[in-house]
C-alpha cells in the first residue's frame, strides 16, 4: 500500500518533470549539432591518432546517451526498463572485445 502511494507520488513527479523538460528538447538538439561539428573538426585537425579516437568515441557516446535519455525519455522510465535496455550491451561488448583479443 505504501508502495502504491509512493508510486503515485513518483508518477506525479515524473509528470511535472516531463513538463519542465519539454522546452529543453531544442537545447539538446543544439548540443547534438554542436557536438557533430566538433567531431568533424577533431577528425581533421590532425591530433595524434589515439587522442582523436578517444575524443571521437567519447563524443559519440555522449551524443548517443543524450538521444537515449532525453529523446527516448529513458530518464523518465522505470528503473526496470532502463536495466532491461542496458542488458544487451553486455553480450554486445563481450562479442567485440573477446574476438578482438584474438589479434
Amino acid at each position, binding site marked *: *500500500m505504501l508502495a502504491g502511494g509512493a508510486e503515485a507520488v513518483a508518477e506525479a513527479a515524473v509528470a511535472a518533470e516531463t513538463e519542465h523538460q519539454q522546452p529543453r528538447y531544442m537545447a539538446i538538439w543544439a548540443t547534438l549539432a554542436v557536438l557533430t561539428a566538433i567531431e568533424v573538426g577533431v577528425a581533421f585537425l590532425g591530433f595524434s591518432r589515439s587522442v582523436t579516437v578517444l575524443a571521437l568515441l567519447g563524443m559519440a557516446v555522449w551524443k548517443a546517451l543524450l538521444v537515449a535519455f532525453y529523446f527516448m525519455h529513458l530518464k523518465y522510465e522505470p528503473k526496470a526498463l532502463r536495466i532491461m535496455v542496458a542488458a*544487451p550491451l*553486455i*553480450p554486445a561488448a*563481450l*562479442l567485440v572485445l*573477446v*574476438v578482438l*583479443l*584474438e589479434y
Partner: protein
Amino acid sequence: MATIVAEASGMPVLVVEHEMPFIRKYVFSTDHKVIGIQFLFFSLFFLLIGGLLAVLIRYQLGWPGKAIPGGGVLPESMAPQGIMLPEFYNSLVTMHGTFMVFFAIMPLLVGVYANYLIPLQIGAHDMAFPKLNMASFWISVPAGLMMMASFAVEGGAAGAGWTSYAPLSARPDLSGVSLGQQMWIVSLVVLGLGSILGAVNYVTTVINNRAPGMTWFRLPLATWALFISAILILLSMPVLSAAMIMLLFDQTIGTNFFLPAEGGQPLLWQHLFWFFGHPEVYILILPAMGFVSEIIANGSRKPIFGYHSMVFALIAIAFLGFLVWGHHMFQSGMNPALGMSFMISTLVISVPSAIKVFNWMGTLWEGNIQFHTPMLFAVGFVMLFVIGGLSGVYMASTPVDIYIHDTYFIVAHIHYVLLGGSLFAIFGAIYYWFPKMFGRMINDTAGKIHFFATFILFNLTFFPMHGLGMKGMMRRIYDPAQYEHLSEIQDTNTMVSIAAIALFGTGIYFLVLFFWSLFKGKKAPANPWNATTLEWQTPSPPRHGNWSELPVVYHGPYEYSHPDMDRDWLAQNERPDIVSPAHPELTDQVLAETGASEEPSPGTHTDGAG
C-alpha cells in the same frame, strides 16, 4: 478480429465473440492457441523430413556405396541408380542439421509451446501482440518452403554443414553449390526474423500481462524457461542474421568478409556463428527443461524441489551461454590462451545443469510417482540428458577435445542432448498438453509403447557413436571405409544404421498415433493429470480468449500434496485461505492487493498466518 478490448482503466473486457470465417479462425488466426497448433503441424512435418534425411545418411554409412532400396526415384544429380553421390551426402548432413535445429526442434519448443502455454500459464487472454504473433508464423512458412525447394535447384541444396563454415560456404567454386547455399542463407534470415518477432511477443507478454497475483516466483517453470529462451533468441539471432547477410554478400556481390583474399577473416564467421550458436543450443534445451519440470512435479505429485534454484539455474545458464561460444573453436586456430578461458566458462556452465538434474531427482524423492506417458518421457529426458551433459565434459576439456573434436563423439553428444534431451521432452510435452490442445487423450498404453521403443532404439543408435568417435571416426564423412583406422568399425556402423532406421519407424508410429488420437482419441476432461497450473483450470480445449474473467493467483505453480487439502493438488487460482509455506508473505500481500477477501471463497478465511 481480436475479441479483447483493453479499456483505459486497464480492465480487460471480453467482447461478444463473432462467428469468424474459417480462414480467420484457422489459417490467418491471431489466437495464440491456433498459432501454437499451426506451429505444431509445421514442425512435425519438418521433423519427419529431417528424420528421412537421417535415414538416408545412415544408409550410406551403414552400407557405403550400396544402392539405396527404392533410391532409384532420386534424380541423377543425387543418387544415380540409387547410389548416393558425395555431394548429395554433404547436402544431406547439412540439411538434416538445418531442418532439425531450425525447423523442427526450435519451433516445436518455442513456436508451439511458447505460443500455446505462455498466455494460458500466466493467465492472459492472449499474447500482447496477436497480429505480430500471426506474422511470426506466416513468415516461417515461406522460409521452410524455400529451404525445401533448395534441393531442387541447380547444384543441389547447401552442402557446407549446418554450421556453414566460410570459405567453403562463401565460395561456390569450393563447394559446388551456389544457389542452394544462397537459398539456405535467405531462408534462415527470414526464419530468424520470424523468431525475433515471436520472441518480442513472448517477452512482452510475460513481463506485462501476468494475471493478478502471478508474481515472478509463481510463474510455472515452463513459462520461465520459454521466457529466458525468448531473451536468448532476441540477443543471439540478430547476430546470426548479420553474419548470414555478410556471407550472402560474399557469395553474391564479391565482398570479402570471410575470404582471406583481401584480408577477410574465416574465423570471424565462426565467432559470429557460435556467438549465436551456443545460446541457440540453450534455446533448444531450456524449454525442454521447463516442460520436464512441469511433468516431473505432476508425475511425482510433489512441489518441484528447489523452485528458486531451478529459476536461478535457468538464468545462470542463459547468461553463461553467452560466454562459452569459443568451446566450439578450440581446434579452429583460435588463440590457445582464449581457449583456456572458454574452457573455464564451459566447465562452469555445467554446474547449473547439474543443479537442475539433482533437483529433478529431489522431486522424485519421497514422491507418489505416477507412470503416465508424459512422465516416462520426462524421466527418459533426465536419464538421457545426464549422458549428454557428461559427454560434454570431454569436449570442454581442451586437450581431450583435440582428439575428439569433429568426431562421432560430438555427434553422439549433440544427439543425446537434442534428441534424447529436447525431443524426449517435446514428446513428453505433446502427450502432456495434447488433451488441452485438442480436447482428446492419446491412449496411454500406445504412448508407453512409443516411449520404450524410442528409448531403447535411441540408445542403440547413439550410444555406440561414442565408441565410433573414440576410434577417431570423423563427422560428415561420406565413406568411412576409406580409412585404415576406421575399417574395423564398419560392423558397428551397420548396426547403428539398422537401429537408426528402426528409430525412424518409431517416429512414424508416433505420427500415426498422433493423428489417430486427433480424431478418434477419448474425449479429455479439463484437467486429466490433476495439475495445478492455470492452463488446466480452463476447459479442454480452452475457449477463444482463454478466460471470461482473468484468474487471480494465490499459490506457487506446483502445490501438489498440500497437507491442508483433501486431494493431492491445489490449483494456483483456488483456495486463497490456504497458505503455501513457500511464499507466505506473498500470499498475504496478494490477498490484500487483489482484494480477494471481497470474493466469497471456500473454506475458512484467515488473515494470513504468516
